[in-house]
């Protein structure tokens, strides 16, 4: 196992005081911190190799192009894609999903078709499908979430009736950013395939936290962001099966994606260039590749085990607090490394403000999941989300801070 205390030394940002206390960063579901290796990769690129890619014949341009395409190959290996051309660089998960919703949706969705998703998607895997369904006259349907606290996960029995041949696309999250629920993505893809539906997975919360293999999962598309997996902001990935990408028109057009252009028309390069109009985020891609190197050197299986240790401790200790309501899987059940909770009589924003005073970074709000909050009868929750550099001692500090908050607002 890695020495997790040495891991903390890799992250410069962690070694600071916030409001006079050592920082406890528990907002990894929103964004992760960056190891020195990733920061150095960005600095090195800007200090040594910065140039535009794919267009230049000079040395720096060739270096930048090699590094950018090398990053694509690195990311392909990270998710075990069959071919680097299946990795499209985007701004992040949101742009990746929008790309599929617009390009694929425009080409394939017709009136009467069904787009299937779940009741606990992040807005970024909900609103693009609302838009695509509206534009095509298709219907949007939802696989229900089971349990008053969402503890039962996806209603897989309901999936039998919902997955009809009218379903043209099934979009679902791998890990819920709000509940911590881990969806059985391989099974969902298998069942979608049986009715001929295309699958889209939101892997924003999973790809940096556990091993992920797109071929083993059997998905058609998979989206994720660099910044939640130790990489830079502004870079993300859309993985798509080559056979599907080659038949898809670009959503955004411009330079870098064309073979031949006349005053009236243009023809497209193959994937991935077809989907990367304009100068791409070269530094971001290089930083993302450095993040892949960093995570794989530690071992994503070991990171998953570390997350699991932390979340089990957190579930046990948080469950003992008076008036707490934890949503998502029950204590002891499988869940990813995050816990969302609400207290009777103390609002999430007050919790977050108090915790910040203790140097603890939490997230309070609806977590871009308004329909789910409404379904669970909540307006907001507080979320603690863990990653490789968090420790059991930090969970103790969280619990002590929450106890102080409860005492302050108590009767």
């Amino acid at each position, binding site marked *: 196992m890695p020495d997790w205390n040495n891991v903390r030394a890799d992250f410069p940002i962690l070694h600071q005081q916030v409001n006079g206390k050592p920082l406890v960063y528990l907002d990894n579901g929103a964004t992760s911190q960056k190891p020195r290796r990733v920061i150095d990769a960005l600095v090195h690129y800007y200090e040594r190799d910065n140039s535009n890619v794919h267009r230049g014949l000079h040395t720096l341009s060739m270096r930048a192009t090699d590094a950018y395409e090398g990053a694509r190959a690195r990311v392909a290996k990270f998710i075990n894609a069959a071919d680097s051309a299946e990795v499209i660089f985007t701004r992040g998960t949101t742009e990746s999903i929008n790309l599929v919703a617009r390009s694929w949706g425009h080409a394939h969705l017709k009136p009467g078709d069904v787009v299937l998703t779940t009741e606990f998607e992040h807005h970024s895997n909900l609103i693009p499908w609302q838009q695509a369904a509206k534009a095509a006259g298709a219907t949007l349907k939802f696989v229900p979430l089971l349990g008053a606290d969402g503890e039962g996960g996806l209603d897989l029995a309901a999936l039998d009736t919902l997955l009809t041949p009218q379903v043209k696309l099934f979009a679902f999250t791998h890990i819920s950013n709000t509940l911590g629920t881990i969806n059985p993505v391989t099974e969902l893809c298998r069942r979608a395939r049986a009715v001929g539906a295309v699958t889209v997975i939101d892997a924003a919360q999973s790809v940096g936290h556990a091993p992920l293999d797109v071929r083993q999962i059997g998905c058609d598309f998979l989206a994720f962001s660099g910044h939640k997996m130790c990489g830079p902001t502004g870079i993300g990935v859309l993985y798509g099966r080559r056979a599907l990408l080659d038949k898809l028109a670009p959503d955004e057009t411009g330079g870098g994606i064309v073979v031949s252009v006349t005053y009236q028309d243009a023809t497209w390069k193959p994937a991935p260039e077809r989907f990367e109009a304009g100068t791409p985020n070269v530094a971001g891609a290089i930083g993302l590749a450095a993040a892949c190197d960093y995570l794989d050197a530690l071992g994503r299986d070991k990171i998953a085990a570390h997350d699991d240790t932390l979340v089990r401790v957190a579930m046990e200790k948080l469950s003992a607090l008076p008036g707490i309501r934890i949503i998502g899987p029950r204590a002891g059940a499988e869940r990813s490394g995050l816990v969302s909770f609400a207290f009777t009589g*103390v*609002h*999430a*924003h*007050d919790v977050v*403000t*108090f915790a910040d*005073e203790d140097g603890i970074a939490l997230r*309070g*709000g*609806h977590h871009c999941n*308004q329909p789910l*909050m409404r379904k669970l009868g909540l*307006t*907001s929750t507080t979320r603690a989300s863990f990653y490789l550099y968090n420790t059991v001692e930090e969970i103790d500090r969280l619990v002590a801070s929450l106890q102080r908050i409860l005492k*302050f*607002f108590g*009767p």
Partner: protein
Amino acid sequence: MSDLADLYQQVILDHNRRPRNRGKLPTANRVAHGDNPSCGDQCSVYLRLDGDRIGDISFDGSGCAISQASASLMTTQLKGKTAAEAEKLFGEFRDIVTTGNAPEEISDIGAFAGVHAFPARIKCATLGWHAALNALKGDPVTATTETHKD
């Protein structure tokens, strides 16, 4: 802790625990809703205008201690006021939460001076006020913290 103690003054905690004028007002002839999309806080304000004066006022909704206490305290301050007086009082309240300076003679709303040290919470404190002013204007459009500067 001192900033936090300033933020959560006793008067604010008291209004949060025992909100005044909470619930729908059956005799209301004006209503407006406010929401803060960044956090999901909601506040509805119900008014009964008698001529140009606020004859009665109530609120309901959900949100943090700051937003709920502010709305509660606001209802106690606005009863009997005209629209012009209400707007003037909101101006004073906004100055208090953005600058932290509360004149000595000012009423309980001075308790919100501590909000200025927490810029992210100013919207919480003003949510109910925006809904009330919209109700006074007869503007049924939802007041949202994303369209005004505080």
